[in-house]
């Protein structure tokens, strides 16, 4: 029997949220999510032969002295399999455990799937767990905050439009101290490419925008960035499994490219 033992870590997003859960809410949410999975989930659960070949692929498992509870198969067994087996009747504490496993002990790096003899997409199974935790609002606080930033501002760092424009123009000035004809062209219709950073660039490392401008200048690229929403190509909502927000963010990103009539998007990440 696998026993999930970890050092306790306080996180309001998990600890406080589970207090608000009721057994009915948990069961209803899990079953709603599982209902929508169709044959894929069933095929994965039925084909896994518990061989454990995925274990050696996981950096968490290798780094914890081959502790079996860090193997990908265990991460599924300790979360989704229990939910399926119990038809969604699991405790709030169990949901807290699921949230911790799905959000902090898996990077969706997909290395495990390379070693699975059946090619089971283990990430998909972890993502289902994340989706259930998200709908129950049991998500690590910082990560949920990032998701709310996407929902409210369409970028991941709570940047307002004027912060964004100001930062880019400041970096443009810096570049032009050295290269007088270099530009960071906002909203240039019909440019060859639209370049989009992720919000931590203007927020924490604005000099990276200047570096990009210098490279574009050296290569003589006809480029542009949007001054309006859609300039951030990151989408943490996808990782949080808030697919509704994820889609809004990405649609805005694509729409910015349509509006500027560019040929393609170059994303820093």
């Amino acid at each position: 029997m696998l026993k999930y033992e970890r050092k306790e870590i306080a996180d309001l997003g998990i600890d406080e949220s589970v207090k608000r859960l009721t057994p009915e809410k948990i069961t209803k949410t899990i079953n709603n999510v599982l209902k929508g999975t169709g044959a894929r989930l069933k095929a994965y659960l039925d084909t896994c032969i518990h061989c454990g070949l995925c274990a050696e692929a996981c950096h968490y498992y290798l780094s914890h002295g081959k502790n079996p509870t860090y193997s990908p198969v265990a991460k599924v067994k300790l979360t989704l399999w229990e939910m399926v087996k119990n038809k969604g009747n699991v405790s709030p504490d169990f949901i807290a455990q699921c949230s911790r496993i799905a959000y902090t002990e898996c990077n969706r790096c997909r290395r495990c799937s390379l070693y699975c003899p059946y090619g089971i997409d283990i990430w998909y199974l972890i993502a289902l767990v994340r989706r259930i935790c998200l709908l129950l609002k049991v998500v690590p606080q910082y990560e949920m905050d990032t998701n709310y930033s996407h929902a409210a501002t369409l970028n991941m760092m709570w940047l307002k439009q004027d912060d964004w424009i100001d930062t880019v123009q400041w970096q443009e000035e810096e570049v032009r101290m050295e290269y007088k004809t270099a530009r960071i062209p906002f909203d240039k219709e019909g440019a060859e490419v639209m370049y989009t950073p992720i919000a931590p660039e203007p927020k924490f490392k604005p000099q990276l925008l200047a570096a990009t401008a210098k490279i574009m200048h050296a290569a003589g690229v006809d480029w542009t960035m949007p001054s309006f929403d859609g300039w951030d190509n990151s989408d943490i909502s996808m990782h949080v499994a808030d697919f509704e927000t994820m889609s809004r963010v990405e649609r805005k990103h694509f729409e910015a490219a349509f509006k500027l009539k560019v040929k393609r998007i170059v994303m820093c990440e």
Partner: protein
Amino acid sequence: MAPQWLGWKQAPIEYIHATKFYYELIRDGRLKIIRKIKEPVTYQEPCNIVRNAGYKEILQYIFHAICENVIDPHPNGMHNYCCIAGGGVINCGPPWKMVRMEGNRAKAEQLRETGAHIVITPCHNCHSGIEDLIKHYKLDMHAVFYSDLLLQCIELPKE
């Protein structure tokens, strides 16, 4: 994933990672490499672009174009280890930092074995994740964002 949620069969416009764009610029001679990094370097291969999007050769092309001595980590390519920051894990914030540090001894040892003092990171997540690992495991190296290195090697117009 989002295009499907939006009811599109695929993304409505071509999008590429900046590494591929810079690779094209170097390949087509639009960016001229006029000096190379002499120190031995190693690199991190981001899961999203290497394992999932197959950019291994593109990254190799850039690394070898700008560095004289590239030391491959083992395993590498699509079998390389994750930096432990991606997939939203670094976004879980400070309370979970030690989960990341203790959870990726494998990466730290892999990097230490290369003997390089520079790790090129072509991804912001990897960059932050690996810098944290370097500090935690006291590795004698530092992480450098790939575009910073590229900038040191290209010809810039004189003005």
